[in-house]
Every structure is written in C-alpha cells, then in structure tokens.
C-alpha cells in the first residue's frame, strides 16, 4: 500500500524549534564566540584564537576538578548501583507494604537539589544538627566545613540518600516484569539464590539498570547545587567539582574566554554521554518491540 506523503506536520514542530533556538542554540553560539576572544568588559573583544582551549587543556586547575569529579562519580556509582539492586531485591513484591516502601523510597527524589544541600548542611552541624551533634557527643571528629574527609563523606552520603531511590525504583520495575514461570523453572532445577540472581534477575534487569547507571553518571557528572550549598566547594578546593569550578571562573572571576572554552569541553563530554544514552535507550526499545 502506498502511503500519502504529507510533510506539513513538520510545521507543528516550529514553535519548539524557535524555543530551542533561543534557549540553547543562540547561547551556545555566543559561548563559542566568547571562547576564541578575550574581553575586559564593555562589550570590547579581541581575537585570541584557540589560546583559551590550549590553556584549559593544560590547566592544573581543570585537571584537579576533573579528577575530583571522576572520583566522586565513580564512588557514587560503586555505592549506589549495588545498594540500589540490593534494596530492590529485598522489597516486598505486592500488598500494602510494597506500596508503602515505594512511597517512602520515592520521597528523597521529590526534594529539590538545593533543599537537599540545606537539609544536610543543617543535619551535619555540631550545634543544631542531629548528625553533627550525635557524632560530636560520641567523640568522633566531624566537621564538613574544615575537614576534607568529613566534607567528602557528607557529600557522598547525601548523594546516596538522594539518588539511590532512583536505581531502586528502576530495578524494582525491572524485577516486577519477570514472569513467575522463570522462578518456578529455577525452583525445579534447584537453582541457588545466587544463580537466580545471576541468570534470571540480572539479565532481565540489565536494560533498566543501564538506563539507571547512565542517568546517575550524567547527574553526578553535572552535580552543582548540593555540594555548592553544603560546602561551597571547600574546605579549600577539596570539593570543587567541574560545574562549581566553571561557575567560579565565569561568574566569580568574570574570565569569560577561558570559562567558555572550559564549558565547551565539558559540554562535549556531556554530549557524548547523552548520545550513548540515547542510542542505548532506542536500541533497547527496538529490542523490546521485536
């Protein structure tokens, strides 16, 4: 059967196209323009070529932020993924407690980033915070404003508290979609708990798990508000991650040229990961459709 070709529907996309042009494309063009020039304000620019890119690629400051960022993202993924799977496996499958657990687990996801930062900032204070006060009364040295280790532990625990729920919910959805027949077959074969997990649950969960890992990678790679509210990048520079460093450079020091080069390289990494994310998701969809 021949389909009628009608491309007029593309005009319906026009408003979104214009919106994206103004909110994303034009700012991006401006950033690219800034990245090859130097300015001392007053809209006076001078051409510097690729100097800023070269400077940022070799900049100690960027390497250190990138290192801290990579370390944070790795630690967060290593804790949240197994922990999330563990919780999902142990959640009730049906009945009142299943709904109850789902609601309780989803709660942290509903809280805005900067509020999460504020909650943990107060929670960890020695004078008025429950955590800080309890630790202090137990004689444990804990001060996220002065001690690097405390600051890192607080940020990691905060992120685990905020985002493990996402992995739990996705894995739980994956587990719920496994038909009972698989478990019955495993029982007949006298499969151990580990084999059930390794050969039934994990393969069936792998699609959603991949989405969860990519989402957590992206989110933690772009983390800003939570550590900014909690530690402001300190003590010293110890929790200055990529986005915090970038904002300091662009708005704090008003170094528009280097900051633009910095943000473009940051953007390229995010774009690459987004592409992988998109490709994986669409290929999973296609497999599901077959």
């Amino acid at each position: 059967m021949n389909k009628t070709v009608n491309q007029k529907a593309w005009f319906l996309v026009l408003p979104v196209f214009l919106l994206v042009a103004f909110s994303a494309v034009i700012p991006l063009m401006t950033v690219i323009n800034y990245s090859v020039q130097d300015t001392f304000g007053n809209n006076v620019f001078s051409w510097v070529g690729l100097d800023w890119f070269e400077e940022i690629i070799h900049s100690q400051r960027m390497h250190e932020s990138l290192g801290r960022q990579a370390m944070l993202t790795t630690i967060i993924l290593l804790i949240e993924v197994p922990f999330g799977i563990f919780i999902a496996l142990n959640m009730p499958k049906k009945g009142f407690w299943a709904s109850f657990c789902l609601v309780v687990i989803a709660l942290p996801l509903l809280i805005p980033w900067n509020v999460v930062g504020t909650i943990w900032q107060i929670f960890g204070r020695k004078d008025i915070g429950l955590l800080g006060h309890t630790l202090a009364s137990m004689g444990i040295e804990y001060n996220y404003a002065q001690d690097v280790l405390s600051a890192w532990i607080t940020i990691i625990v905060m992120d685990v508290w905020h985002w493990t729920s996402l992995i739990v919910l996705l894995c739980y959805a994956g587990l719920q979609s496994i038909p009972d027949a698989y478990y019955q077959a495993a029982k007949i074969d006298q499969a151990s708990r580990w084999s059930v997990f390794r050969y039934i649950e994990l393969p069936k969960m792998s699609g959603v798990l991949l989405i969860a890992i990519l989402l957590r990678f992206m989110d933690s790679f772009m983390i800003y508000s939570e550590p900014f509210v909690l530690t402001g990048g300190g003590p010293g520079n110890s929790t200055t991650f990529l986005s915090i460093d970038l904002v300091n450079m662009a708005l704090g020091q008003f170094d528009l040229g280097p900051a633009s080069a910095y943000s473009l390289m940051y953007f390229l990494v995010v774009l690459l990961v987004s592409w992988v994310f998109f490709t994986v998701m669409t290929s999973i969809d296609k497999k599901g459709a077959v």
Partner: protein
Amino acid sequence: MNLSWMAWTKETATFFISIFIILVIMTIWAIKRPETPRVGILRIETTRGDRLFLSLLGSAFICIAWLGFFGAPIYGGLVVCFFYALAVFRWV
C-alpha cells in the same frame, strides 16, 4: 537588531555558516535520495544524519586532542578529522 553582545567574529561565523550549509545539503540529499538506516561496525542502526553527528562530535574531540598534544595551529588535526569523517561515513 543589535547582535554585538554575541561577540561575532568572521571565523566563528564561517564555522556556523558551513555547518548550516552542510545541514541544508544533507536535507536536500535526504529528500532527493531517501535512505534506509544501516548497521555498521558500531552494531547500531545509523542514518546519514547520525553519521554526520558522529563525525562532528568526533572531530571536536580530535581537535582538542591535537591541541593538547601538539598545540596550535590545528591544520594537521583537521586533516585527521577529514579522514575520520570519511571513515565514519564509510563504515559506521
């Protein structure tokens, strides 16, 4: 319309105009000769648009790597980008 806040330069304008021209050519090409997606060495379905995206994104990384290892100018890097783009269009 005053666009001075966007700090345009001849070079960046040329860069954007060339990308725009490539997009227009790709659109005309897609209308004249519609295609079916194919599976290449990455084992994912790609269309010409996907391959263009991969070429541009990869070229950006190649240029940054060139700057990091050899410094400006990046003419050598651009040559690598050209062959990389050819390879992407041929095999991906």
